């Protein structure tokens, strides 16, 4: 365990490439070491409680960041941001993605909003226009990665076990396994949960919240953090609107009460209605990120 990143204990996470069947089960000790590449040189003052004693060699090159702690007798002033580890690793992911010109989007929603169906349709409709690959996050099963693979798209499955959200560290591992080509899009389908994923930056360009009309137009008020954190709301299952008590305008107004800048699009992954608007949004963002990379590399 290390102060720089404050490893959390997420042992038992499984990363699987369904194409090859290659599977990696992260043990606690492995989790404690995954970060080493991000900040070589930290002193490895691990205690036996958090990690097995190390006997293997490490390369320690960089100077460790100063620990922001000042001793005052027995009181230690820390001022340490609890999520700083995740943020730092997310920034590393972001840098890695932008250096390759890869646009990563974090899709968040409650279970059953139709995220995977929306992704399947998107992948099929944009085949030949946009290169995409997918990181699937679920507590259990390979079901979604298999559905994505059936579209002909590369997918990596993360099974979080008990975890209710994806974190930057594990997504970094999945990105390495995915090896997305330059100028492509990586869709990260987060664990179905409208609360916890709002807090964790994965290094994505934007969070996209998917809300289906069967869930109720008050969801943005009930789960405000998620709508506050998202740039775009896709209102899915619009084909079911005649059968449910859901006011689309009220839903959008509720979302804008939480996040005045949130954009909203009405779609149906089943019928395809409105999907072109979503594809335009996606392609505009992809072009602007590619332009950004070209400008950056020209400077």
């Amino acid at each position, binding site marked *: *365990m*290390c*102060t720089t990143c*404050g*490893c*959390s*204990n*997420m042992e038992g996470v499984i990363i699987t490439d369904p194409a090859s069947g290659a599977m990696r089960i992260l043990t606690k000790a492995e989790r404690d070491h995954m970060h080493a590449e991000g900040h070589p040189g930290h002193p490895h*003052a691990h*205690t036996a*409680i*958090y990690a097995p004693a190390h006997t293997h060699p490490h390369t320690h090159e960089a100077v460790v960041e100063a*620990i922001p*702690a000042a001793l005052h007798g*027995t*009181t*230690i*002033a*820390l*001022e*340490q*941001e*609890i*999520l700083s*580890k995740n943020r730092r690793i997310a920034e590393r992911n972001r840098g890695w993605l932008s250096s390759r010109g890869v646009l990563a989007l974090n899709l968040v929603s409650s279970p059953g909003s139709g995220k995977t169906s929306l992704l399947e349709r998107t992948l099929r409709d944009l085949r030949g226009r946009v290169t995409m690959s997918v990181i699937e996050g679920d507590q259990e099963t390979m079901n979604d990665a298999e559905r994505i693979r059936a579209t002909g798209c590369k997918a990596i499955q993360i099974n979080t076990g008990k*975890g*209710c*959200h994806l*974190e930057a560290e594990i997504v970094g591992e999945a990105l390495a396994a995915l090896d997305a080509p330059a100028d492509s899009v990586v869709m990260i389908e987060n664990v179905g949960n409208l*609360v*916890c994923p*709002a*807090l*964790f930056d994965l290094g994505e360009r934007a969070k996209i919240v998917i809300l289906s009309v069967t869930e109720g137009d008050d969801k943005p*008020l009930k789960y*405000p*953090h998620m709508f*506050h954190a998202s740039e775009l709301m896709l209102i899915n299952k619009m084909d079911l609107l005649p059968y449910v008590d859901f006011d689309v305008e009220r839903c959008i107004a509720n979302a*804008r*009460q*939480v996040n*005045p800048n949130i954009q909203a699009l009405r779609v149906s992954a089943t019928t395809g209605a409105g999907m072109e608007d979503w594809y335009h949004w996606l392609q505009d963002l992809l072009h602007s990120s590619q332009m950004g990379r070209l400008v950056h590399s020209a400077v």
Partner: protein
Amino acid sequence: MHELSITRNVVAIVSEHAQQRKVLRVTLEVGELSAIMPEAIRFCFDICTQGTPLEGARLDIMQTPGSATCRDCGAEFALHDILARCVCGGTHLVRRGGDELNIKEMEVA
């Protein structure tokens, strides 16, 4: 239950700083607009600290208030609820604070 992974981070960071000494007290700063329930942190803290230098430590949680500036009328005011509006009715608010999630200090034996 993101509070569980957050509490694990707290235990990990504090244990590192404790350098084998017993931890008597930990003070956290949690913004009232953050999506963190102090009670859930307390619940997880008892479980996550078992067998660590933090076992039995007192947990103090300071809740820091949020504030906002209204883009419509320019008013600055305390924001206690993520869904609150400005008195002018404006909802276009720029948040100033309330999202904090920090370990302020710790006390070791």
